[in-house]
């Protein structure tokens, strides 16, 4: 073996290698685990559902962040995968299959297959074409759901009861139990994505965001790397959809509407594109603001827009970027590392010039 300390001496975290947050993450998860009990004690049990919603969107936003933030691929159709996951649970429940052990993996497999096809086509394009193609595919699924009269069409499909976790002493009908299951799944997704992002595959994904031609010129199969990330993101988005179908008791075409994709993108950018905590932070802040502001005014989206503007202007790397300033020092360059997902077109063009 080579001198093992040579690796330890290196800054372990930087733009390429991402840390979860060390001891803080455990504190955060313990606090999140205790939340339903606290809310019950305060007589605010209703907010357990809000917290579950946040966890679900944290999963969805984290999955989008993999391709948008780490891959630099602005996918404007991520809601399609969430919606496909939700519909898979709804359609299976309609057919009498209510076991989470079957429905939830299926809710990941269906959008994974869809992502494999959509990715195989859309990843051959870049820039605004990629945005439009992913959007077009998502809208296609949206209208497909609208046209499915057998499954409620425009009105959506009720999911009368939550899935069952046979074999586990958990009743998902209980809001607190459902929250804990969502929390465990969120933790698994977060840990998995952290591993992926810091793996050779994740590094090459980020490298292709920075300079695609350079990856190819050193032998990296950019398409395969991005496609793999796209499929993983689709599958994880489907898991969020499965949970959402359970939480809402309804799946509707609106889940796949482009505005839902846009909302997920706003969450990622708000929280920090290309930062591990970006998706979850963005989802939490977005949904909490929605909850708070919509109680004050029906024009809550206006206030939300103003807040988003402030974040984009003063924290271009999102809320996670703000936290990061107080954490480890990143290596500094003379050039500004401000914009996280660099335009693919520009880096490609420059290297070919």
């Amino acid at each position: 073996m080579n001198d093992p300390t040579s690796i330890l001496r290196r800054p372990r975290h930087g733009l390429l290698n991402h840390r979860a947050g060390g001891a803080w993450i455990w504190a955060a998860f313990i606090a999140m685990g205790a939340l339903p009990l606290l809310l019950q004690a305060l007589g605010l049990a209703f907010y357990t559902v809000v917290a579950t919603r946040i966890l679900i969107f944290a999963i969805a936003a984290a999955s989008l962040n993999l391709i948008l933030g780490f891959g630099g691929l602005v996918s404007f159709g991520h809601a399609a995968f969430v919606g496909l996951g939700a519909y898979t649970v709804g359609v299976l429940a309609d057919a009498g299959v209510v076991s989470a052990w079957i429905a939830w993996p299926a809710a990941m497999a269906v959008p994974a297959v869809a992502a494999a096809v959509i990715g195989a086509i859309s990843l051959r394009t870049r820039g605004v074409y990629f945005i439009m193609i992913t959007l077009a595919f998502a809208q296609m699924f949206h209208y497909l759901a609208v046209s499915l009269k057998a499954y409620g069409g425009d009105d959506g499909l009720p999911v009368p009861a939550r899935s069952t976790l046979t074999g586990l002493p958990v009743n998902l009908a209980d809001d607190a139990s459902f929250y804990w299951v969502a929390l465990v799944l969120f933790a698994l997704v977060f840990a998995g994505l952290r591993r992926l992002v810091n793996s050779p595959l994740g590094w090459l994904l980020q490298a292709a965001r920075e300079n695609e031609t350079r990856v190819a010129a050193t032998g990296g199969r950019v398409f395969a790397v991005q496609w793999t990330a796209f499929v993983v993101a689709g599958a994880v988005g489907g898991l969020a959809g499965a949970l959402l179908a359970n939480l809402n008791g309804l799946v509707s075409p609106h889940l796949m509407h482009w505005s839902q994709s846009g909302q997920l993108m706003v969450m990622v950018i708000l929280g920090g594109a290309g930062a591990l905590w970006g998706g979850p932070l963005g989802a939490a802040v977005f949904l909490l603001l929605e909850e708070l502001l919509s109680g004050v005014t029906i024009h809550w989206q206006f206030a939300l827009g103003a807040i988003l503007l402030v974040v984009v202007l003063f924290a271009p790397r999102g809320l996670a970027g703000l936290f990061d300033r107080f954490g480890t020092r990143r290596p500094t360059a003379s050039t500004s590392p401000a914009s996280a997902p660099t335009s693919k077109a520009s880096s490609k063009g420059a290297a070919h010039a």
Partner: protein
Amino acid sequence: MRESTTAPSPLPELSLLQVHRLVKRFGALTATDEASFDVRAGETHALIGPNGAGKTTLIHQVSGALAPDAGGIFFDGEDVTGLSMPHRVHEGLVRSFQITSIYRRFTVLDNVVLAVLARRPDAPSWWRAARADEAAHADAEAMLALVGLGAMADRVAGGLAHGEQRQLELALALAAKPRLLLLDEPMAGMGPDESARMVDLLLALKAQRLTLLLVEHDMDAVFRLADRVSVLVSGRVIATGTPDEIRRDAAVKQAYLGDEDLDAEAA
């Protein structure tokens, strides 16, 4: 699309790369016009030509960045004309860029580690931590030491001086384990000191019998490094030979150098 590929005639000496009657048109402009040349294993072959001769277009086709309209590219006896750039890299045909192409926001070491990881033949792991990959890091550090950037490993690549960025560019190409290294103007934009250091570096690679295909404007460097020179004019290879032969070649003097004296320039 390519029209046809006739097998090139066998060459007396073992050639690692054969470019056979390559044609590339952009509309009415024929940028590469039946260009043929070969690079022998172990040699340093320079491709020179006046501005607009089509050197970059030719290099793009050899590396796989551009598809030719006709003709063939054969690497180690294998037709690689239809292979993608990453495919050719895995065969050992690696290029560097005239305009420095590095990961500007990442550290110098991570730049090279990424090149090592990209070059691995198997699909990249999505589970093991890249930072814990000691073999990749050791490879990368060796590459940095080779190009003289050992002390810069933890610096951010975009913050390096121009000459150092060119050295990093070379390190990235070397990390891809070339059997033939295509160098597109490695001295581009360099001062005399930086240029001299790059020539020394390339001489060291040459001493290790690494096959080099060098596109360069700096005639002094070309005549110091090259075993053979091919001259490209208007998309055609008009002459190939040793530096001395090229210096004496009347057609080359006429077409490429005009009235200038090649000896004087090389001196």
